[in-house]
């Protein structure tokens, strides 16, 4: 049994941590969030230079030969800084799909852009009616000669306003919720018939409603096949869960540190409020929620490359844990800060809001309880 990190992983953590400290303090973060574009291309370029965008990929693909644990380390530190740059959709979700399932030609055409920081990707899979069921797909992909024609709308596609490429789930055959017949397509955002309605989200990120109207793609835009599309997608979403679990650890840790610090210094009734036992116990509960979340996050990231059944159960279990813990820690951090916790000026509320969105992202507690039970 060994829960220690390798030397490389520790170096990686230190590097990301100091990068975030030096370049992504709360004020800088809010400047980026409030800017026209809502992300910083400069920061993204630095991610590339630091090798973060190459970290999880194999050496054959030009990467640094890391894996889920390296992503976990990176995401945790990005979480501490509430970083909005699209590491999750570009590297973890889309990069992950490409590296595991794309043909060598597709990899050659697309991965260098991701590793080099030249292209940003978004995973367009949820639909207005689909809620958390990735197999509920109405967007259609009709075979047309060698290629396909896509029609449909994808909902709340994270990072889509910044992306130049999408991976889109679309139905090649079968009924609305059939598990078979879903294909994953690489689509250029600039392709004719693709349109987006962009908006900010409550956690300081950006998303879009993406509409495909008779978008023609070639046959080699399809990743895998119609038979494997859904399982490739579900695997990617589980990797996404492993990553946002880690991200949420960064949030919870930051909130717990900030709350303990605040309660030590904030005085009411002539004493630090941290001297009230009821608040001490609350902070102990917050700490325990965090520790349990750390455990589940390690667990899921160690099991992402196991068999499908084990992976699903691990991912759903971890997602339930961080959904509940994140909610508790976020709410209580605000509560213990009193009126200050309600202000836009303090980072506390922003961590709380990101944790709130994470609870829904890739399926909420109820969804994953059910999935856990049936896995």
């Amino acid at each position: 049994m060994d829960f220690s990190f390798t030397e490389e992983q520790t170096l990686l953590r230190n590097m990301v941590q100091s990068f975030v400290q030096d370049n992504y303090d709360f004020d800088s973060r809010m400047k980026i969030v409030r800017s026209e574009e809502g992300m910083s291309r400069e920061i993204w370029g630095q991610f590339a230079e630091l090798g973060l965008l190459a970290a999880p990929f194999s050496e054959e693909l030009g990467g640094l030969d890391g894996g889920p644990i390296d992503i976990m380390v990176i995401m945790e530190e990005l979480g501490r800084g509430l970083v909005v740059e699209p590491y999750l959709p570009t590297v973890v979700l889309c990069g992950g799909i490409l590296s595991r399932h794309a043909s060598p030609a597709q990899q050659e055409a697309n991965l260098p852009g991701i590793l080099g920081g030249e292209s940003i990707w978004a995973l367009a899979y949820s639909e207005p009616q689909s809620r958390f069921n990735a197999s509920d797909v109405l967007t259609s992909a009709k075979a047309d000669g060698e290629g396909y024609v896509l029609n449909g709308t994808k909902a709340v596609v994270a990072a889509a306003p910044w992306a130049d490429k999408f991976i889109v789930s679309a139905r090649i055959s079968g009924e609305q919720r059939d598990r078979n017949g879903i294909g994953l397509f690489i689509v250029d955002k600039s392709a004719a018939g693709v349109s987006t309605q962009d908006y900010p989200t409550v956690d300081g990120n950006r998303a879009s409603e993406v509409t495909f109207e008779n978008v023609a793609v070639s046959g080699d835009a399809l990743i895998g096949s119609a038979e494997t599309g859904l399982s490739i997608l579900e695997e990617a979403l589980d990797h996404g869960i492993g990553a946002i679990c880690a991200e949420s650890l960064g949030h919870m840790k930051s909130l717990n540190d900030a709350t303990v610090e605040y309660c030590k210094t904030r005085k009411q009734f002539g004493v630090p409020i941290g001297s009230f036992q009821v608040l001490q116990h609350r902070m102990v509960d917050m700490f325990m929620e965090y520790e349990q979340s750390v455990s589940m996050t390690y667990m899921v990231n160690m099991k992402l490359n196991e068999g499908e059944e084990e992976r699903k159960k691990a991912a759903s279990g971890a997602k339930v844990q961080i959904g509940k813990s994140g909610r508790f820690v976020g709410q209580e951090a605000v509560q213990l800060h009193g009126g200050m916790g309600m202000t836009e000026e303090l980072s506390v509320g922003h961590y709380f809001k990101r944790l709130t969105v994470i609870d829904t992202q890739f399926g909420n507690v109820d969804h994953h309880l059910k999935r856990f039970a049936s896995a």
Partner: protein
Amino acid sequence: MDVDFTSEDQAFRAEVRKFIEDNYPKHLIGADRGDLSKEDFLAWHKILAEKGWVAPSWPEEFGGTGWSVTQKYIWNEESAAFGTIPPLPFGVAMLGPVIYTFGNQAQKDWVLPGIKSGDTWWCQGYSEPGAGSDLAGLKTRAVRDGDDYIVNGHKIWTTLAQHADWMFCLVRTGTEGKPQAGISFLLIDMKTPGITVRPIITIDGGHEVNEVFLEDVRVPAEHLVGEEDKGWTIAKFLLGNERSGIAGVARSKKAIDRLREIARGELEDGAPLLDSSDFSRKISELEIDLTALEYTELRTLASESKGQGPGPESSILKIKGTEIQQRITELTMEAVGNYASPWVPQLDRGDNYLSIGPDHAEGVSQTYFNTRKTSIYGGSNEIQRNIIAKMVLGL
């Protein structure tokens, strides 16, 4: 024991319901508090003022309605069921009772009519950066200078001060003895030189609270309510009134109806979310909690109508009421799934703003974020538990 309404009560219910339906401003039906202009806030207030129904809880001699406890309850229920924007609490619920209880004749004569008509907008200047839960720790100083007080200090979290004409304010006039001893209750004209109001934006993006800076603000001594240094009794009297209305049972009922409606419209695997046993069970739990609170409130009202004032038990109403409100907003956000994420700008929405997803999803997360305030203000829920522990359980 009997909780049925009499036929007179039923007739009263029909009357007030009809009045609301006939007179409530159409453009404010379903309006969201975050979007309201000053005029919007006051529109219904002014209609009620005309009718003489703006302050049902006041004694009749000062303009109350003379309704029984049951009738007031019915009025609140009907108002909430329709979803009216209630008169702002600062004048009607908070300051009014202070003035007719502690004020002199001159103060009654000018303050009460302005509250009723809605012509004077009041804000509450209690909290300070260093004095939140420990209100008696307040430091804003008022020093007597001839016929005036000169006030210096810093108030914070002052709700809707950006619209206020006047502020009722706790100030320190004495520094001897216990901190509660040297506090006075002062009425301050917000147009007086030396007052600066600075907005605080909350995590939902709204501008609801402010900081108020007072720098050498000259306040005529006639605006002192009660005696100098005796303001703490008044301050606490007011907080007692603030808490009693806070259960919000009728409004929570309405919010649960809306939640159910939303869950009926949301789909999970093609079926209404409301049909999912996981989700409907959570709504049921909430509804049962609310029923318990409703009966607890009715029991409190019943003893009130026998002349017993609201005791420390009203802290139960505050804690449970706000926990239920928070849970409703949480489940409403959960119901809309992915469409809880889009951010709805509250300030500077602009003309080309397009809403994302179904209408019923708009702003639900922001309402959830905003509602976190309810366990913080009005005496935090921790402070309420302290009150019950001490005053009820004798710990």
